[in-house]
């Protein structure tokens, strides 16, 4: 292995949007192996749209996205399937299959996509569930779980095939601070122990300071990357007023401008 960190995701001049209307343009960044990379931005800044393009649910209007040296847009057939298996996605709402137990949810990718023998699938699923702290809930249905548990179950399912990259959409949104902190710890631990790369979409400042190795912040006004760097540095050194406000959690308007 060379000392130079391996680049797993490379986004080059990407323009994303819906129905011919660009939401973000001129987006470029690289994610290196084993880091926790956070895509940050206010509500409506296009974070989730960018994520949809990164995981191949949408195709960028312009530019290229390379994952593990393969162009996501042009990969087809077997190559694309292989590429898709290299990463796991945990959706914001969990997106667990409601008709299956938590254990079956985690087993599903293994059942459908691998030739693993049954006892190993079960072993693997149970070990992952214990890792995310859901061992005792393996037999429950998703509807019986709380919001935080559903998110953890979604992460467990995304980890089932031991992917190299995990995409998490707003993992701490809607969680209480303690549960959110637990989840942050889990992300940190998994990244460290398994050397997994995380791409996290978030607007939760507290969690960003804990988990992020690097962040990019999207600006909803200029519709592009406002700033890139380590979160603590950005907080202290950012010159752009919008970035500074975000990192210091200041209101956009002063009270006199609210029409109360």
């Amino acid at each position, binding site marked *: 292995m060379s000392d130079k960190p391996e680049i797993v995701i490379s986004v080059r001049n990407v323009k994303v949007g819906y129905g011919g209307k660009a939401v973000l343009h001129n987006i470029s960044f690289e994610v290196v192996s084993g880091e926790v990379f956070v895509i940050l931005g206010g509500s409506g800044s296009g974070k989730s749209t960018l994520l949809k393009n990164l995981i191949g649910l949408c195709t960028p209007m312009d530019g290229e996205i390379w994952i593990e040296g393969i162009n996501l847009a042009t990969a087809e057939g077997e190559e694309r399937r292989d590429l898709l298996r290299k990463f796991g996605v945990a959706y914001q709402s969990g997106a667990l*299959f*409601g*008709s299956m137990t938590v*254990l079956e949810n985690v087993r599903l990718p*293994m059942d459908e996509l*691998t*030739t*693993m*023998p049954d*006892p*190993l*699938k*079960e*072993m*693997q699923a*149970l*070990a*992952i*569930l*214990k*890792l995310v702290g859901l*061992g*005792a809930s*393996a*037999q429950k*249905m998703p*509807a019986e779980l709380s919001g935080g548990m559903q998110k953890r179950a979604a992460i467990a399912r995304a*980890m*089932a*095939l*031991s992917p190299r990259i995990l995409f998490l959409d707003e993992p701490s949104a809607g969680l209480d601070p303690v549960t959110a902190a637990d989840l942050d710890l889990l992300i940190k631990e998994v990244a460290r*122990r*398994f050397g997994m790369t995380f791409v996290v979409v978030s607007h939760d400042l507290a969690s960003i300071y804990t988990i992020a190795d690097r962040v990019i912040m999207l600006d909803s006004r200029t519709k592009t990357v406002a700033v890139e760097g380590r979160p603590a540095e950005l907080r202290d050194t950012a010159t752009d007023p919008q970035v500074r406000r975000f990192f210091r959690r200041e209101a956009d308007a002063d009270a006199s401008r609210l029409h109360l």
Partner: protein
Amino acid sequence: MAITTQNELETDLQFGPPGFARVVFRGCMNVQSVAGSWKKLEEGLRPVKLEKLEVDASKLQLCDGSGLSLLRYLGMGLMTPEAAVSVRGMDPDLEQVYRAFTLEDYRALRPSSAVKCHSIPDDVGRGIRQAAGDWRQQIEFLGEVARNFLPTLWSRRQTRWPEVGRVFEQAGADAVPIVSLVSILVGLVIAFESVQTLAYFGAQIYVVNMIGIIMVRELGPLLAAVLLAGRSGSAFAAELGTMKVNEELDALETFGLDPIRFLVIQRIVAAILLTPLLTFYSTFLGILGGVLVAFALGFSRSLVYHQLTASLHLSDIFLGLAKALAFGAIVSAVGCLRGLQTQEGPSAVGVSTTRAVVASIVLIVLADAVFAVLFYYLKK
């Protein structure tokens, strides 16, 4: 050193002195490669009786979650129940993860394989209870609707007429093409099939009388109602069901708004106003279908007209109208009720929709039978 490709895993199984065996893994242990190794181990280790098994993981270049599962499975002695197993040579980080899941965890978390026994009396009791509960809910719902119906209509503020209009358009105007197609085809086919039988008696002209009576008294209302149930009863159930799942109904109640007044009454009003129109339309097109067959047989326009007017009475048309009103009320009420009854879960809305359509059609046919009996005695 040999270059190992990504998915290659070598499983070296060595048997030493009797009762002793050693497994050496070389290469990459991942999702793709564990299956082959598992097969080899099963064939090699299961049949022999071992006292001691040593697993050497020191030559692994990569071991992902599934590889870890294989090491755990061996390490817990699940493949060799009588042997003492030692796993060694793991990378320290990997070993830490390995130790985090033990045999006790595995035993505690595994789903129990006990099969749930259903006792028949239990099931029967549950079924009856459920059916009785459902009847009760239906009666309660009927009472609620009846109690709120006139007061809601009286106060202009409470009946949201634009909403009634929207339902009217979706359930009525948008249904015109499908109702046209189905009615005209049904009329055509019935006329065409019966003409062949009527021909034995030389009574082909009576196909016009027949299609007139059938369409006005039976099939017109029935077709309109069945199509309404399929298109709109299901839509009502799905709309209200989705609202319930999204907690919109709870939001209404906390505002002090009654879902029955706010959502159900408008739909029932729209459906009751609508079905007579759809029924007349369906009847008209059904008769048109039959008449086309009569024309094709060469009967003149005036003869066909005479036969039709002679066979149909005003009472038949009123019967059709009465049925239409009742069917409209049934379809919309059942659709709304099933929507409101929606349970939690991803398939709940689908279940409600199905129940709405099935119950509507059953009730329509039942009501149709009741009408037939009633009309028979009224006529006497």
